[in-house]
């Protein structure tokens, strides 16, 4: 353990450093492999993996999930430029996404025509060039505003930019921008006589865009500009003192982020063939943040991984069978990772199982109506847990109470230490399972949102660098 009182080293950083120790055995081998393989073989491997996965996506739903994963990975990459590298908390990023989508929509629909006919209907390359250039300019403008603002002020102003974008597309010129009804009937991406018409086609287009953007960003990251951004992030004053052009770099970060965001917007609009103002709310922004934070702020691999993980998890939550895998799998994973040695783990797992069946048995003896409900999970998990969790016939109020109890119990688990914590974990997991089966799984949309919020909070508290991010060294 590092001595917390050590001079010249921030305690918080030191603690994170300890957590990310080199490791032994398989972990060490992986770390060494990680250090040896260069960036472009990895990217090629990702591209190849993407193509193979594309071949395996046999039905349209899976293809849609694949496309969305890549889209969010792309969005997270763009957000990473300003947030991860330059250290500017950009909460208006969603506006760039929307700008790209609306830009595409205007030039590829009847929006510029009259009475639902006519319009621009430009080919893909022209639209992409026009919209990305325009997005770059908008990014510069917002970046110029940002020059005068620091940290939190910047966050709130950019949050307002996102809100203002919604107001504009909702209210300004409904004839062209469609107002609340949005724009629909967009052309698919088309150029040189061909067009992308299937979801799988868009999947490959998104894959190509992602690989291209990742390659450019990787080169940018290790360039003078990338290093200067990180210097700016870690200490603007010191960076300025080293003659780094702080202002120009901030504007560049916004502008580049805007271009990547707009590119994602174009793909999104083209694939959906509609755009609505509600596609660009703060909820989507927070989803993108969850991708970036989970994967690791400042890391290209992390952003891509985060985008894929969050999208796939979101998709799993909406199916009662898969959601069970996700929920119980995560609990098991957390216990296996945190409870050592394995004998203790066995006790805890045994305790959780025994407590459930005992509680179910006792309650069913007292009142049969108290266990009359069915768990929300389906499939084999559903049949296993039907004798395990207590779900009354009208689970709404019961589930709500349990939800509050789970929150309190989780706080208690965080506060307790040692054996007491282990003892508290057992009922907490059981109550969480009851709550999950009776209330949460039935409302996948809300549950997803809550889990996204929890991901943000927990990641920041437990592993601020995310799954793959690099540690931030804050100079004190």
């Amino acid at each position, binding site marked *: 353990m590092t001595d917390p009182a050590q001079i010249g080293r*921030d*305690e*918080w950083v030191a603690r994170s450093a300890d957590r990310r120790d080199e490791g032994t055995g398989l972990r060490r081998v992986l770390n060494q492999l990680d250090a040896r393989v260069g960036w472009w073989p990895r990217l090629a491997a990702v591209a190849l993996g993407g193509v193979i996965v594309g071949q395996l996506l046999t039905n349209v739903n899976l293809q849609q999930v694949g496309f969305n994963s890549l889209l969010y990975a792309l969005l997270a990459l763009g957000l990473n430029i300003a*947030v991860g590298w330059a*250290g500017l*908390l950009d909460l208006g990023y969603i506006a760039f996404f929307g700008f790209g989508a609306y830009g595409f929509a205007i030039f590829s629909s009847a929006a510029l025509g009259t009475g639902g006919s006519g319009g621009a209907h430009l080919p893909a390359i022209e639209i992409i060039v026009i919209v990305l250039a325009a997005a770059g300019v908008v990014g510069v403008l917002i970046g110029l*505003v940002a020059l*005068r*603002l620091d*940290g*939190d*002020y910047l*966050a*709130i*102003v950019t*949050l*307002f930019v996102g*809100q*203002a974008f919604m*107001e*504009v597309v*909702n*209210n300004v010129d409904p004839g062209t921008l469609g107002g609340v009804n949005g724009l629909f009937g967009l052309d698919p991406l088309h150029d040189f006589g061909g067009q992308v018409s299937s979801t799988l086609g868009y999947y490959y287009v998104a894959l190509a865009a992602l690989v291209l953007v990742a390659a450019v960003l990787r080169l940018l990251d290790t360039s003078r500009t990338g290093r200067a951004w990180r210097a700016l992030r870690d200490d603007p*004053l010191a960076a300025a003192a080293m003659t780094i052009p702080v202002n120009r770099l901030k504007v560049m970060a916004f502008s580049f982020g805007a271009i990547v965001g707009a590119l994602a917007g174009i793909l999104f609009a083209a694939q959906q063939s509609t755009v609505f103002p509600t596609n660009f709310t*703060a*909820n989507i922004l*927070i989803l993108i*943040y969850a991708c970036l*934070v989970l994967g690791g*702020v400042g890391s290209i691999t992390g952003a891509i991984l985060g985008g894929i993980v969050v999208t796939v998890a979101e998709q799993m939550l909406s199916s009662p069978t898969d959601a069970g895998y996700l929920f119980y799998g995560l609990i098991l994973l957390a216990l296996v990772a945190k409870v050592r040695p394995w004998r203790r783990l066995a006790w805890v797992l045994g305790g959780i199982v025994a407590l459930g069946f005992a509680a179910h048995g006792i309650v069913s003896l007292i009142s049969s109506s108290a266990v009359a409900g069915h768990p929300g999970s389906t499939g084999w998990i559903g049949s296993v847990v039907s004798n395990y969790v207590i779900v009354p016939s009208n689970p709404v109020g019961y589930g*709500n109470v349990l*939800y*509050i109890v789970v929150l309190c119990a989780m*706080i208690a688990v*965080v506060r307790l230490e040692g054996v007491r914590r282990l003892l508290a974990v057992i009922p907490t997991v059981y109550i969480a399972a009851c709550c999950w089966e009776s*209330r*949460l799984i039935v*409302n996948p949309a*809300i*549950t997803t*949102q*809550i889990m*996204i*919020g*929890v*991901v*943000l*909070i927990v990641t*920041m*508290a437990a592993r*601020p660098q995310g799954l793959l991010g690099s540690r*931030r060294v*804050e100079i004190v």
Partner: protein
Amino acid sequence: MHELLQTTVNGLTTGCLYALIALGYSMVYGILKLLNFAHGDLYMVGAYIGYFVIQWFGGPNAVSIPVPLLLAIMVLLAAVGVGVLGMAIERFAYRPLRDAPRIAPLITALGVSFVLENTVLLLFGGFTRSYSTPTFISFNSGITLDGVRIDSVELMIFGLSFAMMYGLHQLVQRTTLGKSMRAVASDREAAEMLGINVDRTIALTFFIGSAMAGVAGVMSGLAFNQISNTIGFLAGLKAFTAAVVGGIGSIAGSMIGGLLIGLCESFSASYVSSEYTDLIVFGILIATMLLRPTGILGQKALQKV
């Protein structure tokens, strides 16, 4: 002339509510330099607590206790409940991150806001609920000055807001707690060395700030009648604007900022267009930040290196 005065009264009502929320923002920002995005959602939780108090005492059509008593219970419960919630959020979400890079607590705050909003959605549903104020507080009560009506809810909002702001001012300027708040805000480490219990001071700051947001929630429910789980976001955003326009960290500044934003809103809704209200508020924020970043009453922040 008539319409002008009425618009002013309406604007001041909204402004008082913004000012109350802005105060919490401003206090937390002053002491922790943390932009608490969850603050707007605390206001929303306060509105829900008020709603359930009305339901508990028989619902708006058959209130079982005298109305002033009901109002007092609503305000008190919302203040205490939301205050405790705010303290809990500080304890479990923000305190572990106190020495982390600046961006970490901001992202946590976004997460807390999201969790609060969706928890209310899960527990109480997404539909808009109504306080039905006119059924238990007569619409015709209140006073009429030269043809301009100020109903009793508005009177109550004015009275309570000004009383709370005066109380807060006295608390910060006159009491030991206020002194330690100012000390922690100006230099946390030095304050700690001088024997001030920093954790306790910050927790109490969160309590007071959140309690005021809770009261603002109840009063907005009474005045505008409609509450839903999403009212917190925009209100929080505008209240922050108010805090910035007035000068963040200053109590009188938050108040002036809140009233200004409220007036701007009601005037732009009456004389320009209600659709562009938010854009106008946004424009004011940008203009303030660019022209006078310290706000009307704020002091120039010294950058510590």
